[in-house]
């Protein structure tokens, strides 16, 4: 179905909802196409190709809301969806803060944001298969200890995002993506380890070469072999960019407007206060062309923007949608995010920690004994209290250098202290998805081991 048709349909649904008694309405339509190939041990393991569409409606009747969605875009299916949302709105409560953005808040960034590349639709399945095979082969070729593989895959897809509301907003944009990953398995005696590497881009030209992906994946896997479990101790902990990203994820959860008004975050009520080391500047920017966190407007039709979150250690802004903004007596930051059904939640754009000046090598050089974290597992981050406790694997730092593999340990602390104890921020900001961080050193954390 063409974009114009879907946009017309969204506008029609909004009009139908108003005709049936809604005082306001907003309609989201999403259309996705996906292709994926997995290879393993140099052979194709699976090929998948498909497309799907769905539509969601949220209505207000005064201060009550109702939502519904359907994957059936026939006139009957859409009619049922509209009736359902209207009926549901009679069952919810009056919520004084419910409502759409003000008309003057609506809009869309102008110009081409580089989110869609037509090259995605011209990809040849044979080339895609070959990319995955080459990545896996490069991992095998890197070292004889890479004796097995959990596969390599190439994924690509295109999507269309359509949004219309009863305050006059009507907009759409397309996105494309492709990614290549490899997951080799290394064995040395009794030790068996797996790691991975991936590259993703809006356009196939933006991907790392398959050989590069395979080689890095192999390197990452090999350096995990024959790990030891260290004694329990307090030491400096260094997060490489890939694991440092998870710290950004926790900061995002802690500045999430819904968590703020519910007092569910250790950063609630801390605007204007020093919450992190002065080396720390965190920004949310959904306007950087071509990036995965970029969009012309958020999921309420508010233009995307750049919001400083932490500036030189001082908490400057929470990330808000219209609802959280009203609860807090503030303005939306254009961070509304939602699926097809329900009230808007909050998402981030390109959410990153600004790079510092030290190279990762320099950062390591100053550490006599420490832990370089290359993998993290588990869900032990409590945003309410800031308590942090996760399983970690990585490499022990001794005399300023990476010395030996470590696994089956925990790292623990409290995010309040961890943010203040960020003693170094690397110069190596690395983008792949919409969360990005350079190397980060935290002064000390408890490593739990033997």
């Amino acid at each position, binding site marked *: 179905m063409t974009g114009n048709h879907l946009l017309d349909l969204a506008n029609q649904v909004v009009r139908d909802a108003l005709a049936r008694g809604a005082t306001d309405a907003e309609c989201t339509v999403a259309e996705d196409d996906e292709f994926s190939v997995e290879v393993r041990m140099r052979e194709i*393991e699976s090929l998948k190709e498909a497309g799907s569409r*769905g539509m969601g409606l949220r209505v207000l009747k005064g201060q009550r809301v109702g939502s519904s969605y359907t994957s059936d875009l026939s006139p009957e*299916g859409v009619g049922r969806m509209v009736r359902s949302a209207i009926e549901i709105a009679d069952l919810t409560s009056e919520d004084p803060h419910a409502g759409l953005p003000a008309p003057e808040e609506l809009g869309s960034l102008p110009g081409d944001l580089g989110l869609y590349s037509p090259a995605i639709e011209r990809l040849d399945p044979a080339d895609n298969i070959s990319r995955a095979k080459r990545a896996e082969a490069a991992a095998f070729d890197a070292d004889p200890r890479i004796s097995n593989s959990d596969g390599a895959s190439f994924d690509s897809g295109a999507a269309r995002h359509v949004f219309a509301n009863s305050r006059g907003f009507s907009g759409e944009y397309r996105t494309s993506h492709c990614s290549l990953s490899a997951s080799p398995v290394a064995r040395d005696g009794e030790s068996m380890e797996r790691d991975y590497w991936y590259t993703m881009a809006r356009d196939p030209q933006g991907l790392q070469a398959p050989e590069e992906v395979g080689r890095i994946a192999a390197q990452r896997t090999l350096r995990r072999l024959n790990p030891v479990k260290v004694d329990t101790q307090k030491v400096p902990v260094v997060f490489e960019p890939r694991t440092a990203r998870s710290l950004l994820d926790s900061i995002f959860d802690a500045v999430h407007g819904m968590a703020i008004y519910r007092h569910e975050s250790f950063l609630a009520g801390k605007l204007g206060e020093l919450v992190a080391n002065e080396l720390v500047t965190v920004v949310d920017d959904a306007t950087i062309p071509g990036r995965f966190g970029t969009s012309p407007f958020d999921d309420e039709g508010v233009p995307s923007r750049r919001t400083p979150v932490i500036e030189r250690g001082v908490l400057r802004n929470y990330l808000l949608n219209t609802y959280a903004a009203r609860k807090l007596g503030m303005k939306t930051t254009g961070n509304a995010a939602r699926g097809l059904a329900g*009230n808007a939640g909050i998402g981030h754009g390109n959410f990153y920690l600004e790079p510092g000046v030290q190279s990762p090598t320099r950062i390591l050089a100053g550490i006599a004994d420490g832990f370089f974290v290359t*993998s993290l597992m588990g869900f*032990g981050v409590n945003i309410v209290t800031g308590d942090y406790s996760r*399983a970690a694997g990585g490499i022990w730092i001794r005399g300023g250098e990476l010395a030996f593999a470590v696994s089956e340990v*925990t790292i623990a602390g409290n995010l309040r202290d961890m943010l203040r104890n960020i003693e170094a921020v690397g110069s190596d900001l690395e983008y792949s998805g919409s969360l990005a961080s350079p190397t980060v050193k935290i002064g000390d954390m408890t490593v739990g081991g033997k």
Partner: protein
Amino acid sequence: MRFGDSIFAARFQITLADLNRYLAEALSQGGDYADLYFEYLLTSSIGIDESIVKSAAEGVSMGVGIRVIAGERTGYAYTDHLVPEKILKAANVAAHIAGGPAKIEKFDLNEGRRHNLYPVLTAPTETALAGRVDLVRRADRAARAYDPCVFQVQATYADNLRHVMVATSEGVLTIDRQPLARLSVSALARRGGESPQQGRAGGGGRVSLDFFLNEKTPEHFAREAAREAIAMLDAADAPAGEMTVVLGPGWPGVLLHEAVGHGLEADFNRKGVSAFTGRIGQKVASELCTVIDDGTIHNRRGSLNVDDEGYPTQRNILIENGILQGYLQDKLSSSLMRSHSTGSGRRESYAHIPMPRMTNTFMLAGQSDPEEIVRSVPKGLYCANFGGGQVDITNGNFVFTASESYLIEGGKITRPVRNASLIGNGPEALKYISMVGNDLRLDEGVGVCGKSGQSVPVGLGIPTVKIDRMTVGGTA
């Protein structure tokens, strides 16, 4: 249910001849096996926050996924448009994983064997929404009434009704109607100017609405969430390092799910990438441990009459008296490993390729009195409840996070401690289980298991167990 009575025949006018035609198209390029997975899914959800019912939603989605297996290769395509032209096109796309002339042309579809584990006449999704809105209002009131320190309550009720139909080129035709419902409550408590603490509880299953009215009421879950939040208000820093750990009964069965369950899924073992590969017949746990994965327990969240490949689920023994017995098999892995399906082929939806998954995973009860287990520990940690867990199946390291735990000092449960992760290594951790309680309990019905981007509902269970050595990731 008979084919003719199914929603797919009745509403979408799909006939047996249609199914034959789609399967023939799927195998037109010489594949060895094909299956069709039709799904029609109705969902509802209701949320309360700050005593205001802020959201309620209903939805419908549908589609068919078509899979073709040729040797070790899988071709997959799906469409959300249940009309012959689109389904045939998807079948044709999936077919091209094979390259050759068609080998099989006629499929004698017969309705296969299935259980009747959730004979729910009216699914919660089919009842009036107003009655379900009342559940979250009741939960909100009960959590607030529990203690004046409770200052924020959120409750979410969600249910769905999934109609599925699987037709395979081996002639299997199964139809199922799968209800599922869950009520979750979160409470925040605060004393004076201290930092708040959160407590969570929830439950449900493949049940009718009566379950929430008569068996496990909103008040039951609300009080449990509020109790946990209050209990954690006085929490001290958690200890760090290796120590004796006692797990309470129920949800702490997440230990089994992470430590052994995932590592025993056949796809990882067929590929030789699991820490359990090649260990069948070996001792991987203390002889006190017998671990079961059972998809046939009535009304449980992880149960299914048939799996998502059309096989009846079953009770699978994973570990018996400490010895590893077998893997969880789906269609593809079992045929490549010359074994048989254990009814463990599951998928998130019609848009996903099935793979071996757990259902309800638990450890059989032992002989010990739970109080005697705690008394036997001079110094250690008692974990009453957990959040989620994760495992690296290749090196076997796993983690799960205690959301409510206490120090054990001199054989007595004393102070609560802050959230801490517990870690171990799958093939080793269960060898340190030295006591197993007589109090097996299954969880309340909230589990969601994620694997390769696919989420499915699961159940867990464990009696009180004592683990002589486990690493606790606190700060003290």
